[in-house]
Structures are given as C-alpha cells and as structure tokens.
C-alpha cells in the first residue's frame, strides 16, 4: 500500500516535469510596470512574438527531436533588485534552460551576474553599456551595438554639415548606459576637430533643464548631444522651446525612433536628430520572418504599435538561442554557450555574430524627424536623405 502510494506520488511529480521537458524554457524578467514599462513592453512583445513564430515553423531542432520554445516571464516593476531576485528564481526554482535579458544597461549589468554565477547563457537586447561586456563574463551576449559607439555616425555626419558646427555640448544622465555613451563620445568629438564647450552629467529623472539650457544659450553652442532617457528628452525639447534655446543641431540617444516621441511632441518633434541601429528594411533577411519589413508589418498588426530597435533586438535574442541550440544539438548550457560564441547568421536585426566580449556590431543610422516623419539621413555609406540643418530659431518654425 505504502509502496503504491509512493509510486503514485512519484508519478504525480514526474508527469508534469516530463511534459515540460518537451519544451525549451526561456526565462526573462522585464519592466511591465514602473517607470520604464513603456520600453519594457517591446521586450515582452518581441520575445513572445519570436517564440510563437519559431514554434509555428516547427520549433527548434535539438539533436534528433523538434522541441517547442516556451517563455517564463516576470515583471520586475522597473526595480533592479527585484529583477536580480527574479533571475535567481528563474534559474533555481523555475529551472529555465536559458535566459533572455531585461531592458536597460543597469539591469543587464546586475542580472548578468546571475547568469554568470549559475553558468547559464543569457542573450540580451536591452543593455548596450560597454561595462556589461568588459568584465570578462563568459555567459552574457548582447544584440545591441556598444553604447560608446552610439554617437559615432552622428559626429561623423556633423563634420560634413554646412555650415560646419564648431562647438559641441555633451549632456548625459548618470547611469551605466549614458555614462558609457559619453565616455565613447568625448574622444570622437575631439578627434572630429570640435570644441567641447560643455560636458555635463545630470542626475537621472531630472525634470528641469532650464539651467543647462540657459548655459547652452549663453555659450552659443552649435551642436548639442544628449544621452538620457525619453522622459528627460521630452522635457529638454519642451523647455528649449519655452526658453527660446535653438542650437543649430541637437541629437538624442533614445526616444527619437519611437512613435511615442512624435505623438507627445507633435510639431515640436521636428528637427530632432537621433539614431537607430535598426530600421524595418526589406534588405534585412531573416530565417523566420522573411525580412525586417514583413516583421514590422506583422508586429504592428498584432500589437497595434510600431516596433523599434528594442523589439528587433528582443526577437534577435530568441533567434540566437534557436540557432545556437540547433548548432549545439543539445540543451546543455555549456555547449549552447559555445555555440552562441561561434554563431554567425543574418537576422532581421542584422548580422548576429558576437565579438570576443559578447557584443554584436551594428552601424548606427542617423535619423531625424522631418515634418512629422522619421527619416534616415546618414548611414554607413554616407548621406541617405538631406538632413534639415541648421535648425531655425523657435520663433520661425
């Protein structure tokens, strides 16, 4: 009797786990609520969209069997400490096979320590800071281009504008990503022959830029480069208008590619420059979605808003695992980790081939809002469209 009960109990435990073994479980903790929920949704939607698509095309071939992908997702409420706890739970309690990343560099910086400790590979498309990849970690891979490189195409373009700007102001928020952007941009500005008239770090979530803007105005700075968060950039543009501060050129690391930015600012969004490593171009071929343009259409139809590079990176993260698992022919973390390191394939996000440190290289296309439309103005092969430059005073717009 006891033996029978024991057997039944064991079967009861074994049954669901046997079912689960069919699926390859990917775990992630992203910002679904809290201050960065607005960008976090790209990762939730991107992960789910890619997993559904890969499963619909037959799943992933690991060894002899075709296996489906499944996702275990937590909401970290835009709280770094909570996200670390959730990644620990994902690997220790939920026993996920592999990890997908959170949004934002400071999150990826903390969470990658979990993947490193438990030796479970994490592919993330939310953190670009060079700091994440400079620690010699073996289990972290990134599908965003390096933060230090964000402004390189912009500075390159600045040198070719007529009349050429001479003074540059660099403003950046005090978090891992934006500090890395500034550290990478400073030498570029000097090498380009510009004078760095203002180099200021401000605290994240600053809502008042009137002092900085007044300083920019009084020093008559030509070009302003801002590395910050979307809320800060919205405040920056609005307060620039209300204080009549109009440099010849301003560019922002985030916000400009999103539909949200244009919607919030209306006509005031015009003239703003930005950058994106990804545009929905039909030239970006993809093994699952056809190409990036088709992907963008299907994504918009499903979720009701346009994808930007965050969504494309999220999809590339899942695809990287699918490809690496197939190449490794196994679900063993170490083998998949080695397969990831050797990976080289064309995706809708661009070529996925990780460097020694674990990051991919993608050129940043300079973009500008022109008459309410997002326009690519400068890419790796030079000018694409004519940039609107110099920016006129606010009173003449």
């Amino acid at each position: 009797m006891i033996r029978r009960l024991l057997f039944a109990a064991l079967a009861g435990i074994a049954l669901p786990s046997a079912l689960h073994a069919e699926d390859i479980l990917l775990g992630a903790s992203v910002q679904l609520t809290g201050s960065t929920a607005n960008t976090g949704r790209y990762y939730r939607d991107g992960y789910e969209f890619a997993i559904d698509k890969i499963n619909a095309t037959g799943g992933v071939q690991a060894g002899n069997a075709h296996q489906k992908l499944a996702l275990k997702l937590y909401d970290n409420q835009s709280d770094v400490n909570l996200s670390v706890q959730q990644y620990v739970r994902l690997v220790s309690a939920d026993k996920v096979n592999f990890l997908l990343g959170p949004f934002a560099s400071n999150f990826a910086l903390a969470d990658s320590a979990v993947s490193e400790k438990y030796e479970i590979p994490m592919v993330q498309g939310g953190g670009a800071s060079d700091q994440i990849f400079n620690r010699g970690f073996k289990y972290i891979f990134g599908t965003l281009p390096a933060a230090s490189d964000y402004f390189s195409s912009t500075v390159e373009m600045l040198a070719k504008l007529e009349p050429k700007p001479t003074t540059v102001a660099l403003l950046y928020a005090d978090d891992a990503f934006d500090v890395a952007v500034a550290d990478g941009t400073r030498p570029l500005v000097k090498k380009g022959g510009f004078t760095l008239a203002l180099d200021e770090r401000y605290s994240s979530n600053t809502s008042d830029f009137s002092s900085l803007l007044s300083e920019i105005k009084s020093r008559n700075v030509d070009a302003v480069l801002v590395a910050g968060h979307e809320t800060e950039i919205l405040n920056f543009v609005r307060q620039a208008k209300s204080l009549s501060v109009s440099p010849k050129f301003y560019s922002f690391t985030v916000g400009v590619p999103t539909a949200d930015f244009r919607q919030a600012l209306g006509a005031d969004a015009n003239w703003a420059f930005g950058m994106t490593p990804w545009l929905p171009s039909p030239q970006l071929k993809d093994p699952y979605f056809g190409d990036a343009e088709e992907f963008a259409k299907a994504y918009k139809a499903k979720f009701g808003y346009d994808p930007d590079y965050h969504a494309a990176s999220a999809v590339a993260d899942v695809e990287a695992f699918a490809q690496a698992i197939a190449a490794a022919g196994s679900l063993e973390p170490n083998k998949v980790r080695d397969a990831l390191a050797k990976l080289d394939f064309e995706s809708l996000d661009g070529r996925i081939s990780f460097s020694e440190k674990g990051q991919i290289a993608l050129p940043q296309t300079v973009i500008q809002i022109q008459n309410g439309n997002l326009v690519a103005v400068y890419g790796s092969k030079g000018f694409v469209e004519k940039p609107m430059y110099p920016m006129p005073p606010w009173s003449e717009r």
Partner: protein
Amino acid sequence: MQLFLQILANGVLLGGLYTLMALGLALVWGVLNIVNLAHGAFIMLGAYACYYLFTLGHIDPFAALPIGAIGLFGIGYATQRCILNLVMRAPIFDTLLITFGLEVVFTYLAQLAFSADFRTINPSYAGANVTVAGITFPLVRIAAFVIALGLTAVMWLLLLRSRLGRAIRATAQNLTAARLYGAEPRHLYAITFGLGAALAGAAGGLYGVVSQINPYIGATLTAKSFAISIIGGLESPLGVIVGGLALGIVESLTALYIGPTFTNVASFGILVLVLIIRPTGLLGRTT
C-alpha cells in the same frame, strides 16, 4: 551676469510651480496631521484629467484646471470620508501606510487606464515666452507662478476668514470644543483633504503643460512637496511659498555652479539643515 539673472529667473519660476505642487500637501499635513504620500498620485491624476479634457474635450488647459481640480476634490473627499477617517486617531504610522498604499493603487490603476506612454499637454502657446532685458520668461511658467500665488492667497483667506475655515481650524485645535459648537469633524476632515487633492489636481494640469506625464511621476513629486513643506514650515501658506522658491532657486543655481548631478543633494541638504537649525520650518514659530 546675464546668465546668473536668467538662472535666477528660471529658479523663481520653477519655485512657483513647486509651491503650487506642495500647497495641498502642506494644507493636509498642517491641518489634519496626515502626511499624504498619495499627494503625487493626485498631481498625476490631475495632469491626466487636464490632458484628456484638452485632447478629447478640446478644452483649453487653463480652463480645464478648475474642472480637474473639482474632480480631484471629489476623489479626495471620498478618500478621507471612506478610508482615512477610520484611522484619524490612530498613530501617524497608520495614515502613512494607508496613503502609501493608495499611492501604489492609484499609480497602477493609472497605468491600466492610461498606459505607460508619455504624454504632454501641448497647446499652441505651451512654448511661448517673453524676453525682458535679455532674460527669457516662459509664459506658462509665469502663469503657474501667478496661479500659485493666487491660490495661496485664496487658501489663506479661506482658512482665516471664512466660517468653513474657522471650523476647520477649530476642529484641528480642539476636537471636543469644536464638536460642542456643532462642527462635524468627519465632514470637515473630508473637505480639507478634498481641498488638498484639488490643489494637487490644479498643479498637475500645469505640470503637464510644462513637463511630461506618465503614471509614475507621483513619487518624486511627493518627495519634492514634502521637502518644501518642511523647509517652509506648516504654520502658514506663506511658508510654502518660501519653501518652494528656496528650493527652485537653490536647484537652479546648483545646476549651474556645482553641477546638475547635485540638484537633489542640494535640495535634500537644505531639508536636513532646516530640520537641524529650525525644525519648525523657515517661517515656523519657534517655541
């Protein structure tokens, strides 16, 4: 010199906005002895009210301010009457916990209802300004400043001169005596809390015109309002003006001369200093 004067003007105008944001918190704190941690959430709700009245109802944001304020008065009145009145005689820790909980609830309901998208209230004149002697004054901030002063004066008059104000103050000073004279504390508490929420609602509308709105702006605004109330003191609405202006000017000058990373260090630094030197606030009565 020009730059210094510009920064000073920026600081004064920023202080006006701060004053308006803190006014409601100081009123509720001073009269009801409730530190309302949901105050920032009320500001956020006021901002959304103004945003939707403007974008969907095509009502000018300044005309929408009183409508939003009345709506927030209702929410505030109901909150006090149905929830906070139950713990009025409990230790202050209970009201802190409850208002903290309310803040979380309002914030997440706002995300469900309005999404986490960033919004701005952007009428054609939102970026308009006037330049006097080379110094630029944004019009909307001047308006916010004037409205802040106006509402402070109205509140002062209301509390000092009107029958309602006297009843409110009497209830706060001596509950038993006020009751003997026929005051209804439950109703008066709710009116006071409602007034605080209405002031937050008006501040929210103006905040949306100069800044951006999302469901999560509340917590930082509560912290700012809290600091202003302490710096200025809770004795009179004038203290809130002094606190707001002090904070606005110090933050602006810090950003220019010390560095923009240090604005929060400066503002909470003054808070600590005031607590050490004048615990009742700059304008508070010393005993």
